């Protein structure tokens, strides 16, 4: 059986991601070990928190993750997705891993619109994306974030609207990122995790 390594860099709700992947039928381990990451059949880069801290804490593993991403699929979740992008303006402009073209910016301030974007919102799903196989247009998933990814249409798998339309999931080859939390999105989220497992 193939092994998914959930990268442990000290941030994020790793336990839910682990259980979600297991429930979806994968063998998954949480690890901060560079050799385990390098030997993985697929990676998950989780994360809640601030971009600058996330990149800082990922620092020692950055080269390993970058190298692995050339060989095996990577799925970034929430902050993990944002770190896959080229840059973020959270806490001052800062470079990300640059594995997916595009950047991350704060939601504009609009009276009456609360930030963070917190709760269940819908996906507009682009056809033909294997990660979204069997997930209907308009499905609800759980979001909690103040910054969003801006990516070219070619790299955008789903769009969601809050204050402005934004890329709620992105892709560059076999590097995938989802802004929402599949491990917190009930049956829809578990289906996405199963689809990811099937891609390995």
């Amino acid at each position: 059986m193939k092994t998914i390594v959930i990268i442990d860099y000290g941030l994020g709700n790793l336990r839910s991601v682990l259980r979600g992947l297991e429930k979806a039928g994968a063998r998954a381990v949480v690890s901060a070990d560079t050799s385990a990451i390098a030997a993985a059949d697929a990676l998950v880069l989780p994360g809640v928190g601030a971009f600058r801290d996330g990149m800082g804490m990922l620092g020692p593993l950055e080269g390993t993750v970058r190298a692995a991403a050339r060989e095996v699929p990577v799925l970034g979740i929430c902050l993990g997705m944002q770190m896959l992008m080229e840059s973020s303006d959270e806490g001052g402009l800062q470079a990300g891993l640059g594995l997916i073209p595009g950047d991350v910016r704060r939601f504009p301030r609009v009276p009456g619109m609360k930030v963070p974007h917190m709760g269940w919102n819908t996906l507009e799903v682009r056809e033909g994306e294997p990660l979204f196989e069997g997930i209907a247009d308009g499905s609800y998933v759980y979001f909690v974030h103040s910054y969003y990814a801006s990516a070219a249409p070619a790299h955008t798998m789903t769009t969601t609207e809050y204050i402005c339309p934004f890329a709620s999931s992105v892709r560059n080859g076999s590097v995938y990122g989802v802004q929402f939390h599949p491990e917190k999105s009930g049956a829809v989220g578990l289906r996405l995790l199963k689809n990811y497992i099937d891609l390995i």
Partner: protein
Amino acid sequence: MALTRRIIPCLDIKDGRVVKGTHFEGLRDAGDPVELAARYNEQGADEVVFLDITASKENRGTILSVIGRAADQLFLPLTVGGGIRSVDDIQQTLRAGADKVSINTSAVTDPSLIDRAAARFGTQCIVVAIDVRANPVMQEGKTPVVLPDGREVWYEVVTMGGSHPTGIDAVRWAQEVEARGAGEILLTSMETDGTKEGFDIPITRAISEGVGIPVIASGGVGTLEHFYDGFVLGKADACLAASVFHYGEFTVRQVKEYLAARDIPVRL
């Protein structure tokens, strides 16, 4: 297609069991937290909140194990509050499987905890719980809130489970916690908590309109209409309730169907 309003069952947990009382007193046993949370998950709850009302240092292990069991079985967002005093406590709670932590008394006694926690874990997982009580003696510098009967009061932040008045103006405190990096406010009014007479609309609205972060209304729900009022009159982003769900008066789904029929966007 829009961000939906959330319905959040809250489980008050004492020594690993769900309890419920009125005005924070007269606690009754209402079951196993993970079983109840799983039931709410099936009913379509948008999130679940666990509040550890034991909140003693030696009891951290009990609540962490409850969080762990819940995180293993539930695939919905989980907020945990009670007894969280430090960045280390937050780290442990998130590690155990919580998605957000709720800070209450510690935020009042040491507001810098909010800044440090938000800087470390991101604003989106830091909820500040604010317990309030109406103070009828208007004072200079306090934000006036007009009650339905026309009286003008100000709302005072209370801590230690509602027993300790702080002299802090609730509306200003809400704005301060936002500035310090809170991602959400969980507002509980001692005026209505446990009464089943409805949310405290005047303070819910004043705070929701006074900040740019989501506000969860809490305390006092007894009927389906109360949820509607919380969203429409109170301008809440989410409504939290405990006993109406624990004792099966209605299900989360019933609440959502009621709201959907009245054009409130909910996830069904």
